[in-house]
């Protein structure tokens, strides 16, 4: 990954201090969320056990099953306990049982003559089979990928959003993206999705600001990209978002449907979707466990802070958050090669030497996470209705991306300040990425920064700011930091936020075969398989 030596002359002691502090913060979080599950974690288990589909009110069956137990106040044992019990008892599949529950014909919690051991065994076996299937599919995909070209092997990976609100239109856009050198398609989700405490079902034809993340949509896009890859001999990656009230479920669906990448930020739901702190932190732990297990690269979302706070001033909070996000991911089994650290180019063009500050920050991210992919996002906050202005800013962003050896970059589009882009906007954006990638290919290796100059001083200043903030968070905890608006200038109360009703204290005999088996690790799963 990182081929550049250090250019910033960072204070190594300071770097170590930051790393240790961030690890301590992550431990603190682990304590605060220990011993809890959520409805979404349980629905993830139901999905892993093979349940899919909706009832006659369009409610997804995983919700039907989990709510059914939750309403009886019995989720503290874990849904797998009840579902496994019923499977053992009836010999029916989880799907058949779910349909039975939906039809009102079945009560999972009425274990008429059941043997708990048998239930646990049934659920464990079903889980093992499911995980083996995921593993098999992904290994097969990995083999296929290795026969294809990877354009991103020696230049930043080009990550492109589609956001039409209609999955079939998204496919058209994705094809144009692939034809113009994009490497990864991320289908932006419809605006409401983060707030939904269920994963919508079926293909989407009318989303707003994006297309729902549904299993069917994943499959439709995956098939289209695979077809393109076959035809063109170059692999196209697929990405989506775990964020929101359904992080674990979406991670599971992503694992099943062969996604390569997922945006998965530990704090985004709290800050930008007003989701309850503990709810999100529990959900992220499980969803990251799944991402890590399945070899899916996750992306952290510090770019958002730069959009709601002043990008020059909030730089230290970005670094602090990157380190925390990284440590949280590590705690749930995600290896370095699968943690893509987010950052964005958001300083307004009217700030004197703003480009130098961006350069410093991008290089800092690069150097702080030498074994991680780093992901750089284009300007959006200050983009206005002038498409030429946006294109010029994107071009400078593209240049800094190349010059700091970023591993991934989201591409900018000229109409960023206006609407979700039209088909040609993405192509224009990709073209500018290509100019910079070719014409400035080795710029990063070619230049050195003046010792003690603006760039080195800025990197040092930002790192010092991050160290201070991390110390504060070690002392007072992450929850307090969120209450004080330390990230993105957004203040959230610990006792408020959506989804609190979905948190469940685990009983002593709580049973979750998915997490348990994933913690052990899959037979021969190599981490970073799809990186």
């Amino acid at each position, binding site marked *: 990954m990182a081929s550049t030596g250090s250019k910033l002359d960072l204070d190594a002691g300071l770097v170590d201090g930051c790393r240790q502090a961030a690890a301590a913060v992550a431990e603190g979080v682990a304590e605060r969320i220990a011993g809890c599950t959520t409805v979404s974690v349980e629905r993830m288990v139901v999905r892993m056990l093979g349940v899919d589909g909706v009832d006659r009110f369009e409610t997804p069956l995983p919700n039907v099953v989990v709510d059914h137990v939750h309403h009886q106040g019995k989720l503290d044992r874990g849904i797998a306990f009840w579902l496994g019990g019923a499977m053992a008892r009836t010999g029916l599949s989880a799907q058949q049982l779910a349909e039975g529950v939906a039809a009102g014909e079945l009560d999972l919690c009425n274990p008429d003559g059941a043997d708990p051991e048998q239930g646990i065994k049934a659920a464990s076996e079903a889980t093992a089979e499911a995980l083996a299937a995921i593993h098999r599919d992904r290994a097969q995909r990995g083999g296929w990928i290795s026969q294809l070209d990877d354009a991103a092997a020696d230049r930043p990976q080009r990550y492109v959003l589609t956001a039409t609100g209609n999955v079939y239109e998204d496919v058209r856009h994705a094809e144009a993206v692939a034809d113009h050198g994009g490497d990864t398609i991320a289908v932006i989700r419809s605006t409401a999705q983060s707030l939904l405490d269920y994963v919508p079902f079926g293909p989407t034809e009318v989303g707003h600001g994006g297309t729902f993340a549904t299993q069917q949509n994943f499959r439709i896009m995956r098939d289209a990209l695979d077809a393109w890859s076959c035809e063109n001999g170059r692999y196209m990656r697929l990405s989506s978002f775990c964020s929101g009230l359904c992080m674990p479920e979406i991670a599971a669906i992503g694992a099943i449907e062969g996604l390569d990448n997922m945006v998965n930020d530990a704090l985004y739901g709290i800050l*930008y979707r007003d989701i309850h702190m503990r709810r999100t932190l529990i959900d992220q732990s499980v969803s990251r466990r799944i991402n890590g297990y399945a070899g899916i690269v996750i992306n952290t979302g510090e770019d958002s802070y730069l959009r709601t706070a002043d990008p020059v001033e909030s730089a230290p909070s970005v670094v602090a958050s990157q380190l925390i996000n990284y440590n949280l991911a590590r705690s749930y089994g995600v290896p370095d090669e699968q943690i893509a650290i987010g950052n964005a180019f958001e300083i307004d063009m009217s700030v004197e030497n703003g480009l130098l500050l961006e350069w410093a920050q991008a290089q800092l991210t690069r150097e702080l996470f030498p074994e991680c992919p780093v992901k750089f996002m284009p300007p959006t906050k200050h983009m206005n209705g002038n498409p030429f202005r946006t294109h010029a800013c994107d071009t400078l962003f593209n240049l800094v991306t190349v010059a700091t050896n970023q591993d991934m970059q989201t591409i900018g589009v000229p109409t960023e300040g206006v609407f979700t882009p039209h088909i*040609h906007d993405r192509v224009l954006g990709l073209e500018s990425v290509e100019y910079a990638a070719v014409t400035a290919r080795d710029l990063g290796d070619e230049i050195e920064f003046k010792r003690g100059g603006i760039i080195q001083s800025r990197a040092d200043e930002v790192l010092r700011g991050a160290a201070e903030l991390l110390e504060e968070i070690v002392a007072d905890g992450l929850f307090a930091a969120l209450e004080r608006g330390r990230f993105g200038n957004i203040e959230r109360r610990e006792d408020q936020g959506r989804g609190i009703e979905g948190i469940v204290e685990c009983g002593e005999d709580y049973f979750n075969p998915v997490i348990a088996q994933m913690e052990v690790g899959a037979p021969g799963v190599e981490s970073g398989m799809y990186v």
Partner: protein
Amino acid sequence: MTAVRPYGDHYDDGLIELSFTLPVPSRRSARKAATMLAEAMGLEAPEVAHCEELTEGFTFFVLYGRCPHSVDFTAIDDAEWEPVPLSEPEIEEFAAEHLTRKVVVVGASVGTDTHTVGIDAILNLKGFDGSHGLEAYGAFETHNLGGQVSNEALVRTVLELEADALLVSQTVTQQELHVGTLRDLVERIEASGRRGEMLLICGGPRITNDLARELGFDVGFSKGTYPHHVASYIVRETAARAASETETTSAAL
């Protein structure tokens, strides 16, 4: 100014640029199709400057041509389009003179919209680009409910607080999301029977005054709006309504 035409490098040359994608294969005939489309818009001498395949069956064009259409600029009522806003102190003064009490203002970014930077810019103390938001004014009692507020919750609060002005923000407009949300809001307010008692104001980067009115709002604000623009409108309109009510009441006597 009665027949204003686009200007490229000579008065009245009518030069304009178009860009668009057509769902046609990238062949020479595609250029012809693009030219014909421009002609259908009435353009003269259309010329494709750039044409490129996006993916099979989709071609992007940049085209220049001469627009013979013109606009009567003198007929656009500047007064309506250009109400000169009052400054912060002028607004306070105006309110002191014409209003009997604080105007209760309730704001939110509604529906699934989480973009709050716009409504915050108008309402919060800090304001926007150096101009204070409505919270800073003595003339207003301001309630900012934040983002992702459902219409239902908003209307409930508005009725509780007996708001004089309701300010809603909408940023995500794809597939006309905002139109549905705003229309639903107006219906709820009307259903409450209290529509007449309040100013309904909406705003956002892609909200126009025309659209706002069409949807049943009193006014709409777009990009480039400063808090004092909105504040001016509110105090003036509130005063005018109060005045005409007094009139109506006295006429009825």
